[in-house]
């Protein structure tokens, strides 16, 4: 099985690191295959940043993401740019205090929002909003295991910042689990 993911946002939000941690979790700790491509092309101009991540059970021959199954956006521009590429029935994860999903969501797509910046600020550092997003991604997509994602966060962040980054991961993860629980209750 192959899953394509696009992470988009502004430079300085840690978009590439977010994509890298997801890839590391899958490839190093979950035993899958993963590729990461940082944005080259018109969407990389200005302050935009994006990462393309592909996860698969088999070796990946073509690493480019054209129609993502999962789109993670942290800025309105990233939403506008990338939402037309989201697959039908795909999943949109967005920073809910920066992005307002409007028209353009493809048929059958689901959208889950998380106030990642606010959660990071409540922990004391806005800088870790991308790690909140990794936690939220882990909880809502189940594409990487909780343990693998947690280890990948630990592997990827500078020494001395581990504990706060783990708190950020947990904050995003808990928010996602709670959101899914509420949705499950509504459906029931």
């Amino acid at each position, binding site marked *: 099985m192959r899953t394509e993911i696009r992470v988009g946002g502004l430079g300085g939000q*840690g978009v*590439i690191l977010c994509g890298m941690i997801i890839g590391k979790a899958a490839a190093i700790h979950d035993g899958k295959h993963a590729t990461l491509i*940082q944005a080259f092309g018109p969407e990389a101009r200005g302050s935009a940043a*994006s990462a393309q991540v592909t996860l698969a059970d088999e070796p990946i021959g073509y690493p480019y993401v054209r129609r993502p199954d999962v789109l993670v956006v942290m800025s309105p521009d990233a939403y506008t740019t990338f939402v037309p590429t989201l697959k039908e029935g795909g999943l949109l994860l967005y920073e809910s205090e920066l992005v307002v999903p409007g028209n353009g969501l493809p048929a059958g797509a689901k959208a889950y929002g998380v106030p990642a910046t606010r959660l990071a600020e409540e922990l004391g550092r806005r800088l870790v909003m991308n790690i909140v997003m990794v936690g939220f991604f882990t909880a809502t997509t189940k594409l990487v295991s909780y343990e693998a994602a947690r280890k990948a966060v630990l592997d990827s962040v*500078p020494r001395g*910042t581990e504990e*706060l980054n783990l708190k950020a991961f947990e904050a995003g993860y808990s928010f996602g689990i709670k959101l899914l629980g509420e949705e499950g209750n509504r459906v029931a």
Partner: protein
Amino acid sequence: MWPEGSSRVSLASGQEVVLRPLVEADAEALHRFFVALPEEDRLFLEDDVTQRAFVERLLAEKQAGQAFTLVAEQRGEIVGYGALYRPKYGWSTHVGRVRLVVARAWQRRGLGSALLRELVRKAQSLALDKLVAEVVEDQEGALRAFQRLGFQKEAVLSDHVRDITGKKRDLVILANDTSHIWEHMEALVADFEPSAG
């Protein structure tokens, strides 16, 4: 609001102590610890730690979330104490203040450094940017321990302290800028450079 958990540390002497957060059941043992401090050590402490009310105050501060208090324990006895204070309001909520006391028999064995290392780690997890400590000029051992862990002299207040014998002494303010660890993280998330795509 404070992180919990305990850890076992081996000191240079080969002895092991447990560092853990203070709990209410420690009141008696902590009081014994403070009362047992020799006068020459208590000389340089800001409070009269031999008063039972001092321990009650520490417990109340912990309960109110004003301080993270750590004790070092060996065989049921408290042999060291460290606290990290963080203002909840005001213009210095990014600055933590640390206090340390180590039993005389356990000094010069690395216990103070172990306690301090744990407090610095907690401070980092609480996103504090700076730590300060106040040491009386004559506390040379304490000064060295703080400096070994990155604290630097930032100010000296002349005759600021009157010790329990009435003698005035200089107070040294030491500071440790812990925000630099986040510079690496800032570089990692700065994904706007053309070379980073």
